[in-house]
């Protein structure tokens, strides 16, 4: 765009005239230039593609989500049937639903990757504290998306994950009971719960996510990319390039890979519903979606037994961890960004990841013991 010469000897054609007309009124070319010409200190990297991938996955979730709503009916006497209809009757319905399902998992995986990258690169430090904080809020929204979307098919898996999830929220001090009743729309799960989860999933959360993601990107652009944690200014300058084309190229290749992976998962493991939801679990062993499994497994521990233990495991520890993450850029004020010179951060990250992995794996192993 910058390389192309603006002056052409011939008269502009009709298309160029339209572009010029719009540009004069909107300033598109300046906006485009601003968006694309952002220097990436130290040059483009594959490690910077996670954020773009998240945006891509989210857009695809919006697209597939809208398509699912063409057939889905959010009422307890039709939700299950309409989802089954999408899977078994509507052309490619199984694919769109499975894409949406695996897309949500991809979103969670990518959020972990993105947060880990920012953490390990020390990119949450001054002057990027607000980018980090808004990012944490976005993380919360992504988890809320997963939790609310899970109920919508109204099968046993959906129902029981919600029953347990809401009971956990009930343990929040002071507002817990209100929160649980508010989400359930009554003392027990039913139509009101489905209506509420539906409207939160398809209206409230997308609006919130779009707003916060916009703010996230704005703040990121305002602060500028952090760049690598090693290298003198001269070295960085020598390698610096613009967002377009090299970084965008890496981003689009990463997005295409993510797309292919989600498509493959949708083909290999398409969504299959269990029995329709009912308060009698039958032979079904309730379990949340895999990314909540570590928390689920943690609550099985003896130290989290009893009323206080449960509050500790379900609310206090996750809450304290999130509060710690929020406070991180204000606690860790050292400008050092090199992860190999921040042993505490590196060890902390490894311990947390290993812990999550350990609890997830043991939850999966526990399944066999139960069957």
């Amino acid at each position, binding site marked *: 765009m910058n390389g192309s010469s603006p002056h052409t000897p011939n008269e502009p054609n009709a298309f160029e005239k339209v572009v010029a007309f719009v540009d004069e009124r909107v300033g598109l070319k300046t906006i485009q230039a601003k*968006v694309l010409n952002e220097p990436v200190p130290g040059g483009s990297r594959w490690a910077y593609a996670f954020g773009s991938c998240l945006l891509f996955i989210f857009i695809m979730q919006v697209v597939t989500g809208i398509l699912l709503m063409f057939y889905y009916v959010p009422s307890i006497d039709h939700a299950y049937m309409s989802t089954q209809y999408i899977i078994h009757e509507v052309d490619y319905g199984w694919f769109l639903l499975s894409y949406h399902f695996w897309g949500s998992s991809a979103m969670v995986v990518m959020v972990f990757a993105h947060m880990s990258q920012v953490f390990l690169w020390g990119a949450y430090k001054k002057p990027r504290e607000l980018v980090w904080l808004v990012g944490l809020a976005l993380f919360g929204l992504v988890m809320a998306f997963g939790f609310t979307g899970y109920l919508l098919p109204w099968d046993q898996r959906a129902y029981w994950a919600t*029953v347990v999830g809401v009971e956990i929220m009930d343990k929040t001090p002071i507002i817990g009971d209100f929160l649980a009743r508010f989400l359930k729309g009554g*003392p027990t799960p039913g139509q009101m719960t489905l209506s509420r989860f539906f409207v939160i999933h398809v209206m409230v959360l997308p609006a919130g996510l779009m707003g916060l993601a916009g703010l996230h990107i704005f703040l990121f652009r305002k602060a500028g990319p952090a760049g690598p944690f090693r290298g003198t200014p001269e070295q*960085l300058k020598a390698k610096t390039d613009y967002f377009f084309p090299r970084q965008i190229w890496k981003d689009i290749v990463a997005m295409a890979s993510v797309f292919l992976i989600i498509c493959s998962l949708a083909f290999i493991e398409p969504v299959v519903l269990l029995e329709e939801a009912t308060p009698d679990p039958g032979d079904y062993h309730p379990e949340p979606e895999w990314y909540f499994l570590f928390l689920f497994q943690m609550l099985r521990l*003896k130290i989290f037994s009893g009323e206080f233990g449960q509050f500790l495991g379900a609310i206090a520890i996750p809450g304290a961890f999130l509060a710690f993450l929020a406070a991180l850029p204000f606690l860790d004020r050292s400008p050092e960004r090199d992860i190999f010179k921040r042993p505490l951060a590196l060890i902390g990250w490894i311990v947390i990841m290993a812990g999550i992995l350990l609890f997830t794996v043991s939850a999966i192993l526990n399944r066999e013991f139960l069957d």
Partner: protein
Amino acid sequence: MQPKITANARCVDGEVGSIAKIIVDPLSHEISHVVIRERGGQGVERQVPIDQIQAVPNEEEVLLQGSTDTFRQWPVLNRGDYVTIHEVEIAHLEDHLHVAPGEILVPYPRLEQAVPRRSFFANMTHAIGALIALPLVFPVLKYLMQPMYRPFDNTWFPVGNVRKVKKENIGYQFKYTRGFKEAFMPEQHIEKNIWVVKATPAVQQAIYGGKDRKFYDDKGNVVWVNKANATHIGFSGKCPHLGCGYKWRRTKNYPDGVFLCPCHLSIYDEAGKVLDGPAPRPLDVLPLQVNAVGDMKIIDVEYKAGVKNQIRLL
């Protein structure tokens, strides 16, 4: 003293041209070069490093090191190697840029000049905004809260015949269907289950402690009393830990059988007492009546899970 863009550039042996552009380092945000358009040189522009500026006698003039010949050795600007700052996004570029053309002013509209209390208007705008929003808070809250609190349902539901329970101190599951009317929805038939134990006197004692168990409605009136010596106990199918459905299972450690919740592995004995796992209280005993031919009926009482005391929800 800061030179103006357009300031004349002079070497020791005479004027060479005027500043036409400046070049900024994108990382340090400092000016790295000035671009000087040669006087009478068909608009040739040369980029001169900033450290070549020896002195700035006044805003209109900069003094370069060296002679006119030295100046002519500086490379000609290749415009294609650069973009303007309008076409690039460099965070905080302006904060560090020491090229201040001075304040650019526009006149205040005349009508505005006579308005004395601008902050008053600003505050009023916020106040009126709040007046629009505040009256909505209560109705919206009530609107959303409408279905949250419902009176307890004390209807009796038939669950099956007690003769199915053959052995003592073993959990027998009874599935039943209950009607459920919610808001505008037609009545739903939902499946639930309870666990019934034919209790020996020891188990009765363990559950009731020799005292009758009373059940209350919202107003605190007694709706039913389970006798302390009743032989059949009905346990709610909802695990008091986090609300899953538990099962009667024989395990290696408990060959006689226990109630086991697959969710978080709470284990209860035939009296509902917690043997192991995270549950905060024993299984919930339901109001149960058995008639002469052994048909059982229960009130579908539901308690909040995860708390030490029974808090009735339904």
